[in-house]
């Protein structure tokens, strides 16, 4: 740690690092399973690392294998598991010690849609049972669906934090996309309207964020532009998504540069 202070589950990382380690679980971004151990042994090993007593370990292994639906694979070496199964096993491992706080670093990356949805369900289950989850993701729909709070991180700095609807509302009620014969002119005209919160340039057109119901405002806007002799070629109207929120705050399209990340926080019930 370079500077600042970290307090997790009431323990200061600087003064009580051991306590912090005991209260957290981690699901790493890359798979970190020993290929040469069985599913059960992976969980056993983890429980032993945290000095869990044997009876508790066994009960927990049974419970978690049923949660992530891997009972049938109990004695299978992890090298023989599919990608989704490995991920589920890692999630189970992260939960082995019943951590107060679980960190998940892009847990659904590279998974098929079905497995992804399944993992979302586990995450929500776990959260309901009282574990606070910090989840980083590049998938904005994932962030939107799962989180109670979202922080957008750009170049290592948190640039926006809020509940999903708060972040989306900050962009206005609706988003209108226009391609016209004179984008600059259109943008100047629309920025003057009270009902328009802001206008942003895109490569071929403009994005208009509006404060009111877009379905009613759109005909009005089109009429105004046509009166000034601006031809409209393309029109699109939509509700702001988390993708729009991300682009709005980071000022660029989503791409995997590794510098931007969304942190999703789901506080647990306890």
């Amino acid at each position, binding site marked *: 740690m370079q500077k600042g202070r970290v307090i997790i589950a009431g323990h200061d990382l600087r003064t009580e690092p051991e306590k912090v380690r005991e209260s957290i679980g981690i699901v*790493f971004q890359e798979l*970190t399973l020993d290929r*040469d*151990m069985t599913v059960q042994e992976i969980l056993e090993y983890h429980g*032993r690392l*945290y000095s869990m007593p044997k009876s508790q370990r066994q009960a927990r292994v049974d419970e978690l294998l049923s949660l992530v639906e891997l009972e049938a694979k109990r004695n299978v070496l992890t090298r023989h598991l599919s990608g989704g199964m490995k991920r589920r096993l890692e999630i189970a491992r992260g939960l082995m010690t019943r951590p107060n706080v679980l960190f998940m670093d892009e847990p659904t990356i590279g998974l098929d849609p079905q497995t992804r949805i399944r993992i979302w369900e586990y995450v929500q289950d776990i959260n309901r049972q009282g574990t606070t989850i910090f989840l980083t993701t590049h998938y904005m729909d994932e962030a939107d669906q799962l989180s109670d709070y979202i922080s957008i991180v750009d170049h290592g700095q948190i640039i926006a934090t809020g509940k999903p609807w708060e972040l989306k509302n900050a962009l206005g009620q609706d988003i209108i996309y226009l391609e016209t014969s004179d984008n600059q002119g259109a943008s100047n005209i629309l920025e003057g309207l009270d009902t328009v919160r802001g206008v942003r340039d895109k490569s071929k057109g403009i994005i208009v964020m509006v404060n009111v119901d877009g379905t009613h405002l759109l005909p009005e806007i089109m009429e105004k532009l046509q009166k000034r002799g601006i031809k409209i070629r393309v029109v699109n109207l939509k509700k702001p998504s988390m993708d729009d929120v991300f682009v709005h705050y980071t000022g660029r399209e989503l791409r995997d540069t590794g510098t931007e990340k969304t942190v999703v926080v789901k506080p647990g019930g306890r």
Partner: protein
Amino acid sequence: MHKGFLTIYWRDMLRFVRFRTLLFTSLVQPALWLAFFGVAMSNNFDRLTATMPAVPGVRAVGYLTFIGAGVIAMTTLFTSLFGGTVLLFDKNWGLMRETLSSPLPRIHIIVGIGLSAMTKSFIQAAVIMVFGLLLGVKFFEGYTATQVLISLIGIALFIGAFSLGFLFLSAAIAITMESPEGMQAVITLLTMPFFFTSNALYPANSFPPVLRALSTINPLTHLVSGIRYFAIGSDFSSIGIRYTYTQGEAVTSFIALLIFATIMFLIARWRFTKVTVT
């Protein structure tokens, strides 16, 4: 007391017995050394020394018996020096993150892996001894059951201290290195001087002074002498040379091995505090 080192030990032994090939080769290889190199060299030496007058008044043992102890020591050296490789793989494949982010004190990783290398060395030594006795290695000749038992305990103590020392060295290298190839090269380079400046295969008495000095500080020499002391005796002759090794010298050798293990442990511990997980 935190028993975390047993967890590390459990995992390493699990992998050791799981991989039949690894288990099999690690047991057969030293036996083959004894069977091929031992028997071949033994025939040569015995013929060369047949004309030499026997040292009067002391028991003469054949070359096979002489290098029996050497092969046990050599196997322990190799097993222990390569024993740390698992840590390098764990580090490179991200497996070590789990262990390092757990509350387990890092020292337990070193101790756990050390104990498993020690166990492997014990198993190998036992196999070589049994195999050697079948081939005609004359260990424990004329010993009573109690003497054999005491000797076995003595040999185990020597092998234990020695294997811990080299495992700690290996762990320190593994945690510092980046690539398995690099580690392989470093360890192969290390085994040479240890092996050839010892008295494992031939007597060290007739070495030139520099080599002899190296041989005296070489832990492998101390292990070999210790095993010979317990398995053959304190006064014997082989290939026409008389060996005496007093109880005091045996104790000194053992202390030397303990000191070596302690220094290596401290180095390994220091290297482990430098490890960070990203």
